[in-house]
C-alpha cells in the first residue's frame, strides 16, 4: 500500500473549504467576518492544495475510500497525475480569486455575503471532489453539487429577471449534459453493475460501445464546457455571476469538463479510435471560431470574455482531438506533444481568464458599468487594474513573451509535423486545422485590443468615470498573483512542462521528456532543437535590452524634452470623447466579414432624421435554428402529455387500474 498522505491532505483541504463555507452561513450578515477572515483563510487553503497537488503530479496514484454515502457505496477517491494537475489548476486560480473575493464581495448585492461564502466554498469543494472521484457515483454527486452551487452563485442577484433567466438556462443545459455523462458511465461499466472507475478501466469495450461512450461523454462534458452547439448558457451565465464567480466558472469549472473528457477518452476507454479525434477537432475548430468571432462583436465586457472562453475551450478540444488522432495511430510522442500543449493551455487559460474576469469585476465596482460603450480611459484612474489586465490581455492574445504564446506555440508545433500519419486524407486535413488555429489566434488579438483599448485607453466616455477608484489592497493582491502566474509561466515554461510530463506519460504511454529533454531552463525545444526551439527568457532579455539601449542612446545623443499639448487629430478643432470608436465601431469590420455567422438587426438613421439613431443587435443564429425549435417541440409534447392530467382522483385510479391489468397480463404471458 502506497502512502496516502497527499490524498488525505487534499481531502482535508476540501473539508476545510466546507467548514469555511458553513462558518459563513452561521453569520451570513456579518460582512467583516466573512470578507476579512473566511475568504483569506480560503485562499490559504488553496495555497496548501496547490503545494499538495503539484507534489502529487509526479507521484504514483493514491487511492482512498471514504465511508460516506449510501451503505455499500462508499466514496472511492483517487489522486493520480491527471487529477493532481487539474487540482493544481483549481488551487492556483482559486488562491488569487479568493483573495480578490475578500476585497470584492459587498453587502446589498442580492444574496447575503455569508450565503455567497457558503455557495462559493461548496463550489470549490465540489470541483475538487469531481477531480478526485474514482467512481461514477461520487463523480455524479459532486458534479451535481458543482452545478447547483454555481447555479446559486450565478443567481446571486436573483431579483434581476435576466439573471433568473440565465440561471435557468444554465441549470437546464447542465442537467441535459449530466444525463449524457451518466449514460456514458452506464455504457462504460459494460453491464457489470460495478460503477468504480477501476472496473471501467478493466473493461475492454467493443468499438461500437466505446464510441457511444465517447460521444455521450463529449456531449455531456461539452455541455459544461460550452462546446458548440451547447454553448448558449455560457455567455448568459458568466456575465450574470459576480466577477470572482465568473472567474472561477470560466477559469476552473470549464476545465473540470475538459478533465472529464480526458478521463473518459484516455483513461477509462484507453483505446480511442481515430475518427473521435476528427470529431473533436472539427467541433473544437467550430467552437473556437464561433467564440472568437462573437467575442469581437460584443459590447458587454463580461460577455466578450465569456465568448473568449468559448474560443479557448475550442482550442483545448482541438488539442485533445489531435492527441486522440495521434494516439490512435500509435504516434505517441506527437500525442504527448498535443496533450502537453493542451494541458498547458488549460492552466494558462485558468490564470489569464481569471485575471481578466477579476479585472472586469474591479471595473464594474468602480464604475457600475459593464457596457464598453460607456467606459474608456480607465488606465489613468485604475492603474493597478489596468496594467495587470494588460498582462492578461497579452496572454489572452497569445503573444510572446506571455504564457498564452507558449501553449499556442506548442499547439501549432503539434499540428505542423504530422507527416507520418498513415491516413493520407487525415494528413492533409490536420494542417488545415492548423490554419484554423492560426486564424483564431490572430482574431483573439483583435478581440483583446478592442477589450483593453475601449475600457482602459482613450478618453472617458462618461463624465463620472473620472471618479473611478482603483482596486483595494486585497483585490490588487489577487490580480498580482494571477499576473505573476501568467508572466512566470511565460518566461520559464520548461519547469512547468517538466511538471506536466507525467500526465502524457500515463495517458498515452509516452512523455515528452522520453525523447530527450524538453529543453533546459533557457530554451524550450519539445521535439528536438533542430526542429523547433523557443527561448522566452532570451526573447525577453533581448527585447528589454534593445528597448533600454534605444532609450539611453536617444537620450544621450539627442534630448529627452517633452511638451504637453492638446491632441493634434489632423487639426480638427472640436474633439470629444464621443468621437472615439465605440465597441460597436470596433467590431464593425468583423461583423461585415463574418456576416453569415450572425443574426443581425440594424437600425440605420436616414439623412432626414431629426434625432438620428443607430442601433445594431447581434444574435446567436443557433438560438433560432436549434434552441427555439427544440423549445417549441418540447412545449407541444408536454401539452400533449398534459391531456392525461385531468385533476380528478377517479381518472388517476383508472390509470392505475389499467396499468395494473397490463402488468398482470405481461407477467402471465
Amino acid at each position, binding site marked *: 500500500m502506497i502512502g496516502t498522505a497527499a490524498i488525505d491532505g487534499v481531502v482535508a483541504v476540501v473539508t476545510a473549504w466546507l467548514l469555511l463555507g458553513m462558518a459563513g452561513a452561521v453569520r451570513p450578515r456579518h460582512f467583516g467576518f466573512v470578507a476579512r477572515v473566511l475568504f483569506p483563510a480560503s485562499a490559504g487553503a488553496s495555497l496548501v492544495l496547490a503545494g499538495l497537488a503539484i507534489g502529487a503530479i509526479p507521484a504514483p496514484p493514491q487511492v482512498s475510500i471514504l465511508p460516506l454515502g449510501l451503505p455499500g457505496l462508499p466514496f472511492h477517491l483517487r489522486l493520480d497525475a491527471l487529477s493532481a494537475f487539474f487540482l493544481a489548476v483549481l488551487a492556483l486560480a482559486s488562491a488569487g480569486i479568493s483573495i480578490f473575493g475578500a476585497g470584492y464581495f459587498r453587502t446589498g448585492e442580492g444574496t447575503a455575503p455569508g450565503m455567497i461564502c457558503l455557495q462559493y466554498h461548496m463550489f470549490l469543494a465540489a470541483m475538487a471532489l469531481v477531480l478526485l472521484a474514482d467512481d461514477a457515483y461520487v463523480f455524479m454527486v459532486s458534479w451535481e453539487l458543482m452545478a447547483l452551487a454555481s447555479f446559486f452563485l450565478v443567481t446571486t442577484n436573483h431579483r434581476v429577471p435576466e439573471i433568473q433567466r440565465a440561471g435557468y438556462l444554465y441549470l437546464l443545459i447542465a442537467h441535459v449534459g449530466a444525463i449524457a455523462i451518466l449514460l456514458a458511465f452506464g455504457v462504460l461499466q459494460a453491464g457489470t453493475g460495478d460503477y468504480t472507475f477501476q472496473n471501467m478501466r478493466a473493461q475492454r469495450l467493443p468499438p461500437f460501445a466505446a464510441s457511444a461512450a465517447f460521444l455521450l461523454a463529449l456531449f455531456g462534458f461539452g455541455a459544461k464546457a460550452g462546446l458548440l452547439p451547447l454553448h448558449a448558457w455560457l455567455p448568459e451565465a458568466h456575465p450574470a455571476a459576480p466577477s470572482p464567480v465568473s472567474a472561477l466558472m470560466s477559469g476552473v469549472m470549464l476545465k473540470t469538463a475538459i478533465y472529464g473528457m480526458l478521463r473518459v477518452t484516455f483513461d477509462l476507454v484507453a483505446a480511442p479510435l481515430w475518427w473521435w479525434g476528427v470529431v473533436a477537432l472539427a467541433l473544437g475548430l467550430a467552437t473556437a471560431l464561433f467564440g472568437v468571432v462573437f467575442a469581437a462583436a460584443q459590447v458587454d465586457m463580461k460577455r466578450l470574455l465569456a465568448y473568449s472562453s468559448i474560443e479557448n475551450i475550442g482550442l483545448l478540444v482541438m488539442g485533445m482531438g489531435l492527441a486522440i488522432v495521434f494516439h490512435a495511430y500509435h504516434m505517441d510522442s506527437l500525442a504527448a506533444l498535443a496533450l502537453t500543449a493542451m494541458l498547458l493551455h488549460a492552466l494558462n487559460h485558468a490564470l489569464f481568464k481569471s485575471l481578466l474576469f477579476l479585472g472586469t469585476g474591479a471595473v464594474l465596482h468602480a464604475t457600475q458599468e459593464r457596457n464598453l460603450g460607456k467606459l*474608456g480611459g480607465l488606465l489613468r484612474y485604475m492603474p493597478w487594474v489596468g496594467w495587470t489586465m494588460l498582462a492578461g490581455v497579452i496572454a489572452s492574445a497569445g503573444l510572446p513573451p506571455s504564457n498564452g504564446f507558449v501553449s499556442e506555440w506548442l499547439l501549432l508545433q503539434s499540428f505542423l509535423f504530422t507527416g507520418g500519419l498513415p491516413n493520407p486524407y487525415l494528413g492533409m486535413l490536420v494542417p488545415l486545422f492548423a490554419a484554423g488555429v492560426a486564424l483564431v*489566434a490572430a482574431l483573439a488579438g483583435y478581440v483583446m485590443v478592442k477589450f483593453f*483599448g475601449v475600457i482602459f485607453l482613450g478618453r472617458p466616455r462618461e463624465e463620472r468615470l473620472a471618479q473611478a477608484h482603483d482596486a483595494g489592497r486585497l483585490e490588487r493582491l489577487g490580480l498580482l498573483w494571477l499576473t505573476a502566474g501568467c508572466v512566470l509561466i511565460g518566461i520559464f515554461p520548461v519547469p512547468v512542462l517538466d511538471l506536466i510530463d507525467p500526465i502524457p506519460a500515463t495517458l498515452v504511454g509516452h512523455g515528452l521528456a522520453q525523447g530527450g529533454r524538453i529543453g533546459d531552463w533557457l530554451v524550450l525545444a519539445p521535439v528536438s532543437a533542430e*526542429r523547433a526551439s523557443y*527561448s522566452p527568457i*532570451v526573447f525577453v532579455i533581448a527585447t528589454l535590452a534593445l528597448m533600454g539601449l534605444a532609450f539611453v542612446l536617444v537620450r544621450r545623443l539627442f534630448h529627452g524634452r*517633452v511638451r504637453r499639448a492638446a491632441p493634434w487629430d489632423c487639426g480638427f478643432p472640436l474633439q470629444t470623447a464621443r468621437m472615439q470608436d465605440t465597441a460597436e465601431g470596433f467590431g464593425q469590420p468583423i461583423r461585415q466579414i463574418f456576416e453569415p455567422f450572425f443574426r443581425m438587426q440594424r437600425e440605420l438613421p436616414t439623412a432626414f432624421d431629426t434625432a438620428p439613431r443607430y442601433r445594431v443587435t447581434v444574435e446567436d443564429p443557433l438560438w433560432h435554428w436549434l434552441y427555439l425549435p427544440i423549445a417549441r417541440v418540447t412545449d407541444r409534447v408536454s401539452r400533449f402529455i398534459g391531456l392525461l392530467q385531468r385533476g380528478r382522483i377517479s381518472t388517476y385510479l383508472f390509470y392505475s387500474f389499467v396499468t395494473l391489468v397490463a402488468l398482470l397480463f405481461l407477467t402471465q404471458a
Partner: protein
Amino acid sequence: MRLEGIAAQVFSMAAALVLAPLLAGWVGQCRAWLQNRRAPPLLQPFRTLHKLFHKEAVMAHEASPLYRAAPYVVFACMLLAGMIVPTLSTDLPLAPAADAIALVGLFALARLFISLAAMDVGTAFGTMGARREMLIGFLAEPALLMVLFTASLLSSSTSLARIVESVSRQELAILPSLAFAGVAFTMVSLAENARIPVDNPATHLELTMIHEALVLEYSGRHLALLEWAAALKLFAYSCTGIALFFPWGVAHARDHVALALALPVLVAKLAAGGVFLALIETTLAKMRIFRVPEFLATAFLLGVLALLVHMLLGA
C-alpha cells in the same frame, strides 16, 4: 556561445539598422523615377530621422505611460525581428531563441502595442487607425503563418536558420508549393508594410490612411523611432522573403568566405526587391478599405493552398 557568433549577431544588428532606412530610401527613389519625378537622395530617410530626433516630442495631455513606451517596444521588436531572420549568416546565437512562429508573434506584439498606443489619446483617427491595423493584422497574420508553415514542412523545422540551410541546399527548381507561398507572402508583405494597394505610406488623406493614422499623434523622437521601426519592418519582411525563397548566398556556419560575400549579395537582392516593390506600387492603384479583407483572404487561401499542394505533391 562563441565570440564569432556574437560578432555575427552584432554585425547583423548594425546591418539591419543601416540597411533598413537605405532600403526605404531606395524604394522611394525607384518610385520617383518610375513616376517621372525627381528622386530624393538615397539618404533622405536618415536625414528625416536626424531631423525628428532633434525636435522636441509633443504629447497630448491625456497620454499615458503606455503611449510613451510604445515606440520603444515597437522599435525593439522590429530590430529583434531583423536580428532573428538569417540575413547574412545562419549561425546566429539568437536564432534558437525564436523560430518562425515566434517571429510572427513578435510582429503581432508590435502591432498590439502600436494599436493600443494609437487608442490611448482617444482621438477619432487614432482609434480608426487601430481598428484598421488590427483588421489587416488578423487577416495577414494567419496568411504569413501559412507561408512559414509551408517552408517549415519542406525543411521539417520551424527554425528560420534551418529553413534557409535546407532550401539553399536544394537545387534550383521552382517548387509548386513555394510558388503559391511566394505569391501569398508578397501580398501579405504589401499589406503589413502599409504599401499600395492596401495603404499608401505617403498619404495623409484622412479616410484612407492606416499606418499614418496610427502614428498621427506622435512627434519628435517617438515618431523617429516609429519611422525607423517601419523601415526595419520592411527590411525584416524583405529578408524573410529572401530567406524563404532566395536563400542562396547566406553564409552557413563557419564559412568565412561566404560571410564576407554575404553582405554584397544581400544588398544586391534587397536592391532588386526594392525595384520590384516600386514596380508593384506604381502599377497598382490603392484599394478601398473594404476590399482589403478580400485581398488578404486571397493571400490566406493561397497560403493554405501552398500547404495542401505540399501535402499532395510532397514538394
